[in-house]
C-alpha cells in the first residue's frame, strides 16, 4: 500500500452535495434552503436543476446562492435567508497510510426565518436541516475508504454546536461529520 496522498480529499464536498442532490430523503433540505417562510416544507420539491442552481462556485453575485463550498461568504447579505456551507475543516493523519477528514456543515438562517412548520410542529429550521443531513449522510459512502459518519469514535471533532452567526441577524449551527481516506489503488505489499 502506498503512502496516503489525500487524493480523494478535494472531491469530498462535491460528492456530499451530489449525493444530497440526488437522494429523495434530502428533498426537504433543499426546500428549507430555497424557501425562507414558515411553510417551506409545504412548497413543491425542487428539480435537480433548481437544486444545483443554489450552489455557488466563483459567482460574483453570491446573494443568489444558498450553498457554499467555503466558510467565507464575501458579499454582504441583503435579506434574512438560509445558507449551508460545506467544507473540509480538518485532516488528521492517523498513520502514514490513513487520515480522518472532518467535513463541517455550517447551517445559518436569519433570526426571523428560524421557525419552520415541521409535521405540524413549529421547529427550528437549524435542527430540521441538521437532522436531515445526519439522516441522509450518516454511514454513507462518499468516496473515502470508509463511510461518512457522525461518530465520536472516528474523531472527537464530530459534533453539533449551536452559536455561529453574527449576533445580530443571523444564527446557526455547526455540524461536523468525518470520513477516513487512504490510497487503495496500489496493490504492492
Amino acid at each position, binding site marked *: 500500500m502506498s503512502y496516503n496522498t489525500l487524493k480523494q480529499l478535494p472531491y469530498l464536498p462535491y460528492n456530499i452535495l451530489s449525493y444530497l*442532490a440526488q437522494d429523495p430523503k434530502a428533498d426537504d433540505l433543499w426546500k428549507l434552503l430555497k424557501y425562507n417562510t414558515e411553510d417551506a416544507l409545504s412548497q413543491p420539491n425542487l428539480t435537480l436543476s433548481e437544486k444545483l442552481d443554489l*450552489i455557488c462556485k*466563483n459567482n*460574483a453575485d453570491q*446573494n443568489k446562492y444558498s450553498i457554499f463550498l467555503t466558510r467565507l461568504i464575501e458579499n454582504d447579505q441583503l435579506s434574512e435567508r438560509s445558507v449551508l456551507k460545506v467544507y473540509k475543516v480538518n485532516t488528521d493523519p492517523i498513520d502514514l497510510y490513513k487520515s480522518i477528514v472532518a467535513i463541517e456543515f455550517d447551517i445559518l438562517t436569519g433570526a426571523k426565518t428560524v421557525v419552520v412548520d415541521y409535521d405540524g410542529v413549529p421547529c427550528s429550521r437549524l435542527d430540521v436541516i441538521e437532522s436531515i443531513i445526519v439522516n441522509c449522510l450518516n454511514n454513507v459512502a462518499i468516496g473515502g475508504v470508509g463511510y461518512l459518519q457522525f461518530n465520536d469514535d472516528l474523531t472527537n471533532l464530530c459534533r453539533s454546536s449551536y452559536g455561529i452567526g453574527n449576533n445580530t441577524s443571523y444564527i446557526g449551527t455547526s455540524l461536523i461529520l468525518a470520513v477516513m481516506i487512504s490510497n487503495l489503488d496500489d496493490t504492492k505489499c
Partner: protein
Amino acid sequence: MRFYDTYHKNLAESSGDYYKNNKQAQVDYSWDDTTQLRIVEEQSAIGSTIYNKISVHADYYVDYSSTSMKNKDDFIRMSFRDFEHETDLGRYYKYDDSYWIVTNTSNHTSVISDCIVRRCNNFLKWFDKDTGKIISMPCVLDYNISATNPKVDKDINVLNSSLTVIVQGNEHTRSLPYNKRFIFNGVPYRFVAYNNYMQNSYIDDRATILYMDVDFDALKPVDDRDNNIADIKEFVYNVNIHENPIEQINGFKGKVTATVTLNGEAVAKDIQWSAINATINDKGEYTIDGEIGDTAILTATFGEFSQSVAILIVESLSVKSEIVISPLTKELNQSESVTLTAKVYRNGIAQADIVRCTPSGAQGCYTLVDNGNEFIITNIRMSKEPLLLTFNSGDLTTSINIKLKALF
C-alpha cells in the same frame, strides 16, 4: 371701475411678471454680448441618448480660495437664456470633451433659470448579462477617499478604502444590485449603499441623482482590468452561425440560423441580423444583392457579441456541401441532455440526406439515442476524456467534442 377691474384681472401683468418679462427682455437683448457664452449639449431627458445643442452662460461656482481641494474647473453654474427652461437633478450635459451632471437646480427660488453642474471624471461600467451589453454611465468620483486602514486579520491583510460615486439615477443605475462591482482605472470597488430614496417629488418618485458608496474590493480573475469592467469573464457569450455558405450567385435566397451560448451552453436569446451586399430579416432569411466579385457578409449579433459569415458572390456555382450540427454544444453537465440536429447543406440549402453519428471516447459515461438526424446525448457520469461525435453522410464528415462535466 368695471372696465378697470376687468383690465386689471385679465390683461394687466402682475408686478412679478412685469419684472420677470423685463428681465427676460434684457437677457435676450444682451445674451450674445458676453465672454460667458457657451454652446453645450443637453440630454433631452433622464436616461435618453439624445443630446440637443443649447447656449448657456457659464460662470464659476466654487471659489478656489475656499478650499484648495476642489478644482474650480470641475464646477460650473450654467444659466439658460429662457427663464422657463427647466432641468433635472442628474441630467447630463456634454461640454469640453466631458460629461457634466446637474447637482443643484433652482427651479423654485430664482427668476432666472440656472443650475450647477459638476464634471464627470470617470465612467461607471458594467456588463449586463441579460442583454449582453456593456453599459457605461458618466459619473463623478468624489475627491475624498475614506477608511484607508487595511482590513486587518491575523491570516491576511486586504487594502481598504471607500469612495462616493455621483451618477444619474435612470432605469439602468436604479436597478443596480448591492455588491455589484466596478473598476475605476484598474482599481475595483464594490457597491454597498446608495440614496435611491431621494425622490424628486411625491408625483415624480424617481431619484434622478444617486450618491453611491463603494468599498475597495480585491481584483478577481473574472475582471477585465484593461477595459475597466468587473466580473465580465464570468459570462462568456458566443454567437455561432450554424451554416457556412462560402459562395453564391446574385439573387440567391437562403436562410441562416444561429445559437447563443453562455459558458458553453445554449441559451435562448434574441439575435439581431444584419447584412452587407445582401438583405436579411429577423428570421435570418437573406437575399444576395451585391455584384459579382463582392462579398456578402451576414452578421448575427447579441449584445456585444457577434459572428459573421462571408459569401463570395460568383457568376456560377460549384457545388459545396457540408454537414451542419446545431446547437454547437461543447459541454454537458452530469444528468443533462442535449438534442443535436445534423443536416447536410448543399450551397446553403438544407437537404434530407441521412446523417449517421459515431461516438468515441468517454466510455460508459453517456447515452446516445438516434432519432434520425436528431441525436439525444445524455451525460450520465462525468469523464476526463471528452466525448467525440463523428457525423457522416456519404463522403461528408464532421465531428465535435463534448466535455462531460460534473453535476455542478
